[in-house]
């Protein structure tokens, strides 16, 4: 029997689950990941990292290491401080005064902070030599709790800032005080905590860097997923123009945002390639990654107050948000603005005030992680709904439906000026309830009870906002000159009629080669097999723009928007040429099946090969004014209106996909151990180019959420040691840990994107919300503990079982 997915009878490739073009090489071990590449005489880099969370670097002595066998050279923080400028800071002063370099200069600020680097002829010899680098530290008191970071007795991490606060600002929309005056109930929650974790892509950060002495140009083979951002950081630091930094990616083994901020290591690699005049290679270890790379934003929500009408309608909320950025601001404080994309969650709340502040701590720097900054805030919104429902004894499902933005309100402008493009949230909720079999939930609860288990049911609803308006950065720093977004694609017709597509993106498993070929094949009129999509990103291809990369749920809009623009352009040129050759008008020409045909008489046709050849190698007879190149570069730019910085108001993202998750779990009341026993997800990301790929993203993000909800955490001790520094203690769920899953989809096309698509891939955070909701539901019958943390290991659940009063002590209801 055939195991191929069913291809429906359809005139288009778009909308079908065609098998992926990428899979042939990846299932045969023929993918090319960075660590697979070798160069003659290359050196292996080993970073020596600080074992202390906070320490003055008294001295670094590389003498013995330089004499060790096979060693080519070293790099120290002192050299880096001479050779480079500190990285550009997004934050305004004083947070922007932070001096961040490729290696720690003068002070180590987290366990794993790279202090020196050594290069040798083999991996083992580099590692051996690293033990000979003598570093003297003067250990300082570490700052590990964001809540005490600004206490005057707490040591400063960056003295040039004058405080451990890196950024703060108040967001105030609607009439918050009025809403509270109008409320029948005010529900308050003392403190909620969104935990620190990340998506731990299986491939680690890596680079192979070559330096061309003659041209002063570096070729950086790497797996950075946002090369546009990386070079903006690297160029000014090294003091070179961006064309000197040729960024090349091929297959990337997962990214999830975590591979955006490798620029400090890439700069160190560049300096070493130049200094040692040889190719150098760096591959991070798992422990390096956990200790130093891209933790998700840990966030505290304090003094949360919600204004509620007696029927459960919520008028809005106010709170403080305290973000723990870790030791350096590598992409931060952007997290301080990004959440505004989804300020009211999926709800019609009009009055919101958030006093946001961000502090630095002696932990690994935070950087984007799947659902970046929105996930934290959406978790807060979902916690608000479930806690309010619990306290006022309302049905969380009814409260959601009552408070959701309604389909007839679409497109909907939120209090912060963001525009939710389309969707039917109540319908999606009904769909997920049907998938999970909600009508039988009480029978299942009774069955669980008979087995001594506490059953819990919970919903998590979430938005997956995509295609950023980078002007959001000016909420943080009005002097920044960023706005809009951009992505590039080039589509050309080669001499033998092959359609070749070059992207600016850096896919890490999202199947861009496949979905691109579907869009192009439909427009140009050929099969997807006839479309070659180049693997990865290469800035020499000149098919990129300032925001090129793969991050923040945008490919289906920005990437495919660029692809469509370029393919439309090429198709127009092909019609133009065919018309010229066949003596017709371009509008008389139809493209299909690899031919340009006369609409009126399809027998009269030119194969693509002829079109490609005429322009490229047989062009003597073309008219002088014929300007088709058969090579079309298109830059996609979404339109955004200017922001109102005073009110922090305006549209920050183009599309809003959404997901609703439903979770059924059972707690063993004797131990707090729980198991997710049933799970369902509904996704709506507008038109789907390839439904199977979309479903794959939904599944993967769900798995991340389930991992983060129960097992995955970057936990630190009081000394700033990371207690989960690799997969031994950082438990990533495996095949036996996964519950049964049902998925379903709704398509609400976006009115704002070229293909009716919405970017997606980050909606999985809803799994965290759903598990929290289900735990709280299960605890209802045994004292009503309130879930305060996004991460609930068994011992935390046990504590809520043991002392429910403590677990709800800071939750209060005031009635008007």
């Amino acid at each position, binding site marked *: 029997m055939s195991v191929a997915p069913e291809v429906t009878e359809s005139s288009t490739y778009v909308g079908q689950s065609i098998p992926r073009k990428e899979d042939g090489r990846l299932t045969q071990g023929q993918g090319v990941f960075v660590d697979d590449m070798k160069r003659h005489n290359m050196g292996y880099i080993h970073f020596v990292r600080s074992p*202390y969370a906070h320490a003055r670097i008294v001295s670094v002595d590389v003498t013995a290491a330089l004499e060790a066998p096979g060693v080519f050279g070293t790099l120290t923080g002192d050299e880096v401080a001479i050779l480079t400028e500190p990285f550009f800071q997004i934050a305004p002063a004083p947070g922007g005064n932070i001096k961040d370099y490729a290696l720690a200069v003068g002070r180590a600020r987290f366990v794993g902070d790279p202090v020196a680097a050594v290069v040798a002829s083999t991996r083992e010899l580099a590692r051996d030599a690293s033990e000979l680098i003598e570093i003297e530290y003067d250990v300082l008191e570490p700052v590990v709790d964001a809540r005490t970071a600004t206490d005057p007795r707490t040591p400063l991490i960056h003295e040039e800032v004058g405080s451990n606060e890196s950024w703060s600002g108040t967001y105030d929309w609607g009439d918050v005080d009025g809403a509270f005056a109008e409320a029948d109930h005010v529900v308050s929650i003392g403190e909620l905590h969104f935990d620190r974790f990340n998506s731990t892509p299986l491939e680690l950060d890596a680079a192979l860097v070559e330096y061309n002495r003659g041209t002063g140009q570096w070729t950086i083979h790497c797996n950075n997923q946002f090369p546009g951002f990386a070079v903006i950081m690297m160029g000014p630091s090294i003091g070179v123009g961006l064309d000197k930094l040729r960024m090349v990616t091929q297959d990337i083994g997962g990214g999830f945002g975590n591979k955006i901020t490798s620029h400090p290591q890439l700069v160190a690699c560049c300096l070493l390639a130049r200094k040692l005049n040889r190719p150098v290679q760096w591959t991070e270890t798992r422990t390096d990654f956990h200790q130093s790379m891209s933790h998700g934003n840990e966030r505290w929500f304090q003094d949360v107050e919600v204004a509620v009408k007696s029927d459960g309608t919520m008028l809005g909320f106010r709170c403080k948000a305290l973000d723990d950025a870790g030791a350096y601001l590598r992409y931060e404080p952007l997290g301080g603005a990004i959440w505004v994309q989804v300020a009211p969650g999926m709800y019609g709340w009009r009055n919101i005030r958030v006093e946001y502040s961000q502090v630095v701590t002696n932990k690994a720097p935070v950087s984007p992680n799947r659902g970046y900054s929105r996930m934290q805030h959406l978790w807060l919104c979902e916690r608000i709904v479930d806690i309010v429902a619990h306290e006022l004894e309302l049905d969380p499902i009814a409260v959601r439906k009552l408070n959701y933005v309604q389909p007839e309100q679409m497109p909907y402008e939120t209090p912060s000026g963001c525009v939710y493009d389309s969707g039917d949230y109540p319908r999606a909720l009904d769909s997920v309830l049907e998938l999970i079999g909600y009508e039988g939930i009480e029978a299942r609860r009774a069955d669980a009870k008979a087995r001594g288990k506490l059953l819990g049911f919970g919903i998590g609803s979430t938005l997956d906002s995509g295609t950023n308006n980078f002007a959001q950065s000016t909420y943080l720093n009005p002097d920044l000159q960023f706005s809009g977004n951009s992505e590039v694609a080039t589509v050309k017709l080669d001499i033998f009629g092959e359609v070749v597509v070059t992207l600016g993106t850096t896919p890490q498993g999202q199947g861009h080669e496949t979905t691109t070929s579907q869009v192009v094949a439909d427009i140009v009129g050929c099969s997807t097999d006839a479309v070659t999509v180049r693997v990865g990103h290469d800035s020499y291809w000149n098919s990129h723009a300032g925001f090129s990369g793969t991050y923040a749920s945008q490919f289906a809009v920005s990437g495919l928007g660029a692809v469509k623009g370029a393919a439309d352009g090429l198709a127009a040129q092909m019609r133009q040429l065919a018309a010229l050759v066949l003596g017709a008008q371009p509008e008389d020409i139809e493209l299909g099946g690899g031919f340009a045909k006369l609409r009126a008489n399809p027998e009269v046709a030119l194969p693509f090969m002829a079109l490609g050849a005429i322009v490229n190698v047989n062009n003597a007879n073309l008219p002088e004014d014929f300007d088709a190149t058969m090579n079309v570069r298109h830059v996609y730019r979404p339109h955004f209106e200017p922001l109102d910085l005073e009110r922090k108001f305006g549209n920050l993202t183009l599309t809003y996909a959404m997901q609703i998750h439903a979770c059924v779990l059972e707690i063993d009341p004797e131990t707090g151990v729980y198991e997710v026993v049933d799970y369902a997800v509904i996704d709506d990301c507008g038109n789907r180019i390839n439904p199977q790929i979309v479903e794959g993203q939904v599944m993967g993000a769900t798995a991340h959420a389930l991992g983060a909800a129960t097992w995955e955490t970057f936990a630190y*001790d009081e*000394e700033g040691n990371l207690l989960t520094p690799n997969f031994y203690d950082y438990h990533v769920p495996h095949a036996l840990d996964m519950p049964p899953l049902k998925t379903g989809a709704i398509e609400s096309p976006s009115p704002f994107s070229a293909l009716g698509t919405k970017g997606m891939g980050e909606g999985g955070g809803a799994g965290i919300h759903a598990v929290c909701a289900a735990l709280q539901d299960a605890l209802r019958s045994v004292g009503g503990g309130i879930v305060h943390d996004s991460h609930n290991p068994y011992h935390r659940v046990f504590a809520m079982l043991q002392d429910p009063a403590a677990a709800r002590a800071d939750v209060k209801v005031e009635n008007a």
Partner: protein
Amino acid sequence: MNVEGTREFDASRERVWAIISDPAGMAGLMPGVDGFEIIDPTHWRAKVKVPLGLGGLKMTMDFEQLEERPLEFASMRGKGKGMGAMMDMTTSFTLSGEGDHTHMAWEADVKLAGVLASMGQRVLQPIINQQVEGIMSALEQQLASPA
């Protein structure tokens, strides 16, 4: 990590004190001491090999006497550096008791950095307990033998 405990000895405080206040005496009690060197009256250095089945954890420990009230109280700080671990330990002993009986209360504040600190939390406490047990048993044994 803070650990503490008490121990009773059938010996006079003078005898207990004589051993624990003498760096060489202390070194004699510690399990796995490979080498020992007195730098000055308040500083000494020991090469220690904690016997672990996986190959033994070698460390060079620098000790410094912090405070001493004869027959009553002694505190010291030991800083060690070895493969995969940096240790900074402050420990103190308080003695009380009359005649041929000594009550010892001890406590130690152990700070670790390096691979053991991040990966060894689960086994650290049992290892420290093993070490302390080793020291106390050795002390007991020494006290049991004729002075």
